[in-house]
C-alpha cells in the first residue's frame, strides 16, 4: 500500500465488497438518517431570543392556555442541520432533469427570488392604504397586460391561487354568465377522457355533472362524439390544449365553434401553455376562459408542491363576472376594487382573502421581462424541440403512444414495449431513480396503458437530454434482456427503498403523537417565567 511519511495511506486502498455494504448507524455516507423534529427537539429549547413581556395575560382569565401545546424546539444550529439534512433527500430541478409530464419543471431564475424579497413587495401588507401600494398595483397591472397580450384575451382574473383554483374561478364565471342569461338549467360539463383529474373534480365542486367525450385513435377530441353530447343542458366544455397526450388539438377552432353554437362556453385548461406561448393566442382559438399556471409556464418555483398561482384570462362575455378584487386606473392613480358592488355588481364573489399570489406575480413578471416577446417565443420552440428530440431518440427502444407526427412540449409513451418482460411502468420509473433521474409522469393520461409522459422543458441543455436518453435506452435494453430484478426491486440506491403505500393508507399515521404529558410543576414554572 502507498503511504505518505506519517503513515497515511494515499491510494484508494485494497477495497472490499461495496455492494450491499451497510453502515453501522443507518445513514449512507453523507446522507444522514434524520429523526423527526419531535425526537430531536425539546419543549424547553428554542432558537429565538425575545424581550420578556411587560404585561401578563391576567386580563384574559381562563381563556389562557394551561396545557402544553406539544411543540418541540431547536436551537439555530440544530435547525440548520435538521432541515439541510432533510433537503438532501430530495430531487430538485437544480440537480437534474425533472421530466414530469404536464408539470413543466423548468429552471427557476434566482433573480426572481431576489425581486420578490424586495421590502417594497415582501413587507407590504395586503390592506395597506392603496396610496402606499401603488407600485404593487402597477406590477399587477403590467403582469395582467402581458397575460392578456400573450393569450389574446381581453380580461384576466388575477386572484386564483393555483391552477385548480383558476379552473374553479373560470367555471364560476361561466356559471354566473349562464345564470345571468336565464341559462341556469345548463348543468353539464363535457370533459375529454384524457383530462387532468382537476377538470371533472372542479366541475363537480361547482355543482355540475360531468360527461366524458371520447378520444380519437390519434389522441384528439372526437368531434362527432362532442357534437352528439352537446345540447341545451351543456354549460361548458373543458379541453386542455395542447392536450395531456402532448398533442395540439388540430380541430380546436371547430371545437369552439360548435360548442358556442350550442350555447356552451369553452374552458381551456392552460396547464400546457408553455408549448405555444408567443406562437398561438388562445383568444384566436375561441377560448372563453383559461387559467395560466404561473408556476409552470412562467417559472415560479414549485417549492415541493406549492404555492402555485392560477390567473384566469377571460373573454368579453365572461369578463364582467370576474371575482373581486381587481385593479383599475382612475384619474389619479391605481385603485383596488375590493367589493363586488356598484360598478362590480355582476362579479360572482371572491376567491381568496386578498389580492392573490403577489409573491408569484413578482417572480412571473421578472421572468417575462427577462425573456421578452422574442424569448418567450423561443421558450415554446425549444420546449417543443426538446420533447421531439426525446421522442425521436427513445423511440429506438420504447413505443410512443402516438408515433405519427410531432408532439408538442411532451412525449408520451405506452408500455407495450415492456410486454413479456414482467416489468411495469412503475418498476421502470423506480429504476430511473437509481440512475439519478426523477421519473416521468406515470399512468397519466388514463387513456394510454402504462403511460409514461416526459416533459423536458426548454431549460435543458442538449448534453443533459442525451445523458437522460442514454440512461433510459440502456435501461430499456436491460429490461428487454431479462434483467428484471434491476427494476422490480428498484430503487436500490435512493435514500429509501420502495415505500409501502398500502400500509400508509390502511393504518393512517398522520401526526407524531407524544404521550400527552400533564404540565409538570417545573415546566409550568419555566413557561410562566
Amino acid at each position: 500500500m502507498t503511504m505518505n511519511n506519517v503513515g497515511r495511506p494515499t491510494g484508494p486502498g485494497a477495497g472490499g465488497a461495496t455492494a450491499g455494504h451497510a453502515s453501522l448507524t443507518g445513514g449512507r455516507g453523507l446522507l444522514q438518517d434524520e429523526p423527526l423534529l419531535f425526537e430531536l427537539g425539546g419543549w424547553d429549547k428554542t432558537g429565538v431570543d425575545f424581550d420578556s413581556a411587560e404585561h401578563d395575560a391576567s386580563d384574559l382569565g381562563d381563556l389562557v392556555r394551561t396545557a402544553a401545546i406539544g411543540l418541540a424546539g431547536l436551537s439555530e444550529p440544530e435547525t440548520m442541520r435538521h432541515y439541510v439534512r432533510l433537503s438532501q433527500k430530495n430531487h430538485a430541478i437544480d440537480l437534474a432533469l425533472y421530466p414530469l409530464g404536464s408539470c413543466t419543471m423548468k429552471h427557476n431564475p434566482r433573480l426572481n427570488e431576489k425581486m420578490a424579497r424586495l421590502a417594497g413587495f415582501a413587507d407590504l401588507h395586503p390592506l395597506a392604504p392603496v396610496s402606499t401600494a401603488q407600485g404593487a398595483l402597477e406590477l399587477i397591472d403590467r403582469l395582467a397586460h402581458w397575460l392578456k397580450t400573450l393569450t389574446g384575451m381581453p380580461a384576466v382574473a388575477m386572484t386564483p391561487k393555483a391552477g385548480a383554483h383558476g379552473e374553479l374561478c373560470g367555471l364560476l364565471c361561466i356559471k354566473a354568465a349562464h345564470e345571468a342569461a336565464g341559462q341556469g338549467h345548463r348543468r353539464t360539463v363535457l370533459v375529454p377522457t384524457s383530462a387532468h383529474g382537476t377538470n371533472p373534480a372542479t366541475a363537480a365542486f361547482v355543482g355540475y355533472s360531468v360527461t366524458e367525450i371520447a378520444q380519437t385513435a390519434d389522441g384528439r377530441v372526437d368531434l362527432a362524439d362532442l357534437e352528439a353530447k352537446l345540447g341545451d343542458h351543456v354549460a361548458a366544455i373543458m379541453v386542455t390544449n395542447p392536450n395531456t397526450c402532448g398533442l395540439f388539438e388540430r380541430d380546436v377552432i371547430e371545437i369552439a365553434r360548435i360548442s358556442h353554437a350550442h350555447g356552451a362556453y369553452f374552458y381551456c385548461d392552460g396547464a400546457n401553455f408553455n408549448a405555444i406561448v408567443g406562437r398561438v393566442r388562445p383568444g384566436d382559438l375561441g377560448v372563453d376562459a383559461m387559467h395560466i399556471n404561473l408556476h409552470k409556464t412562467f417559472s415560479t418555483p414549485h417549492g415541493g408542491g406549492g404555492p402555485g398561482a392560477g390567473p384566469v384570462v377571460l373573454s368579453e362575455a365572461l369578463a364582467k363576472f370576474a371575482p373581486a378584487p381587481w385593479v383599475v386606473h382612475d384619474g389619479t392613480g391605481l385603485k383596488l376594487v375590493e367589493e363586488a358592488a356598484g360598478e362590480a355588481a355582476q362579479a360572482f364573489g371572491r376567491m381568496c382573502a386578498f389580492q392573490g399570489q403577489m409573491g408569484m406575480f413578482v417572480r412571473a413578471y421578472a421572468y417575462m421581462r427577462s425573456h421578452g416577446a422574442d424569448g418567450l417565443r423561443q421558450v415554446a420552440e425549444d420546449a417543443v424541440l426538446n420533447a421531439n428530440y426525446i421522442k425521436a431518440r427513445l423511440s429506438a427502444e420504447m413505443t410512443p403512444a402516438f408515433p405519427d407526427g410531432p408532439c408538442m412540449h411532451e412525449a408520451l409513451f405506452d408500455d407495450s414495449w415492456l410486454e413479456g418482460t414482467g416489468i411495469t411502468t412503475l418498476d421502470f420509473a423506480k429504476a430511473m431513480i437509481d440512475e439519478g433521474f426523477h421519473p416521468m409522469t406515470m399512468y397519466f393520461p388514463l387513456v394510454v396503458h402504462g403511460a409514461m409522459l416526459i416533459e423536458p422543458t426548454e431549460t435543458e441543455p442538449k448534453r443533459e437530454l442525451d445523458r437522460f436518453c442514454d440512461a433510459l435506452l440502456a435501461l430499456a435494453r436491460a429490461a428487454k434482456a431479462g434483467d428484471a430484478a434491476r427494476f422490480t426491486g428498484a430503487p436500490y440506491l435512493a435514500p429509501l427503498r420502495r415505500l409501502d403505500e398500502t400500509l400508509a393508507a390502511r393504518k393512517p399515521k398522520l401526526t407524531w403523537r407524544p404521550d400527552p404529558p400533564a404540565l409538570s410543576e417545573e415546566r409550568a414554572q419555566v413557561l410562566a417565567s
Partner: protein
Amino acid sequence: MRYLPLTPDDRAQMLSVIGAPDIEALFADVPSAARVTELFNLPLHAGELEVERELVSLAARNRPAGAGPFFCGAGAYRHHVPASVDHIIQRSEFLTSYTPYQPEIAQGTLQVLFEFQSQVAALTGLDVANASMYDGSTACAEAVMMAKRVTRREKAILSGGVHPHYAAVTQTIAHAEGMEIVRQKAAIDAEADVIAAIDSTVACVVVQTPNVFGVVTDVTRIAEAAHAAGALLIVVTTEAVSFGLLKSPSERGADIAVAEGQSIGNALNYGGPYVGLFACREKLVRQMPGRLCGETVDADGRRGYVLTLSTREQHIRREKATSNICTNSGLCALAFTIHLSLLGEVGLRQLAALNHSRARDMAGALKSAGVEVLTPRFFNEIAVRVPDASAAVEALLADGIVAGVPYSRLDPHAGLDDVLLLAATETTTSEDITALAAALKRRAGR
C-alpha cells in the same frame, strides 16, 4: 438568452435527429389561422440589470410595513422571521422540487410535511391536520363544504365576527355548491349569537376567535349547542401566534379548526402566498380536503413518509373527489415549520405573550389619549372607535403612521364606518404606540 441553453448548432443537430426540416414542422398541427408569425407587441428580452432596475423602481413606490409606525392586521400580520428560515427555504432541494410523487427521492419534503401536520395538530389540539391549504379563507370555505359532506346538511351559520373576506370566499363556494350560508350581522362581541340560529338543519357553525375585531371568545357553549343539534363547530383563527397564549380550538369543542398560518414564517407579500392550516378530529379524516402525508416503511423496513389517503383526491376520484385541490402551499408550509421549530414550545409562548403585552400597551395608550377601545378581551388586535376611520387612516399617513385598517374597507355596508382595527406585534415599538396615540388625540382635538 441566459435561461435557454440550446445553441443554434444544437437546434440544427436535434432537428436532424428528429428528421424535421425546421422548427415550423414541429408546429404542423397548429391550424394556420391560429399561428402568430410576428412577435407580440411586448418589449424584447432584457438583462438582469435592466429587469432589476424596473422592479426596484416599482418596489420603491410601495411603503414597506417596516418603514415606520404600522398597525395593520385584519388577517395578515407583520412578525419578525428569523434569517435562517428564508435561507433554508431557498435551498434548491426545497425551492425547485415538485410535489413528492416519488417518495423515495422526496423524503425531505415529505418528512417536513409530516412535521408540519404534527405541529398544526398540536397548535389546534386536534387529532389530524392536512399538508396545508392556499390560505385561511379558502381553508374556511373547504371546512364548510366538508361539514356538508359529513352531516349531509346544507346550511351553515357564520358569526358576525368572521373576517368579511373569509365570509365572502365561503359564500362564493357555498353558493356554487347549492349550500345556504346564514351570515350574522357584523358585531364586535357577539359570537354567541349564533346559538339562537342553530337547528337540526344546520351542518356547521363558523366562529372566529380572536375575531376580526380582535375579540377572544370562549366558544365552549357554542360547541355544546352545535353538537346538541348534530352540527359541527368550525373555529377560524387568522393570527396563528395566538395559539401560543390562548386555549386551543379543540379544548373549546371545535370539530374542525382552520387558520391563516402566514404569521409564522411568512412575509406579508401583499396578500400571498400564504398558508392555510386545516385540522380536524380523527373520525372525520376521510372527508378532509387536500393532501395528507403519512408514515409508513420502505422495502427494508425503514421508516419513511408518503402522500396518503389519496383516494379522496381529484387525480384518483376525479368528479367524486372531496375537493378539486391539486396542490398545497408547500414552501410556505416549510417556512412555517422551520420558524415554529426555532420557536418551539417556549419560544411560541414567549412570542405570544409579547404580542399580547404590546397590544395591552397600545390599548392603554389609546385609552389615555381618549380613544374608545371597543374590544373587551383581545390577543394582539383591537377595534377602536374613530369617527370616519377611513379618513383618519389617510390623515395619519401624513404623519408617517399607517394606522390600521378601517373596518369599512372589509365590509362597506355594515354601518361601522367609525371602527378602526389595530394590531400590535413584537415588531411594534413603544415609540410607535406613542406616536399613534398622539396622532389620534390630535385628530380628535381638531
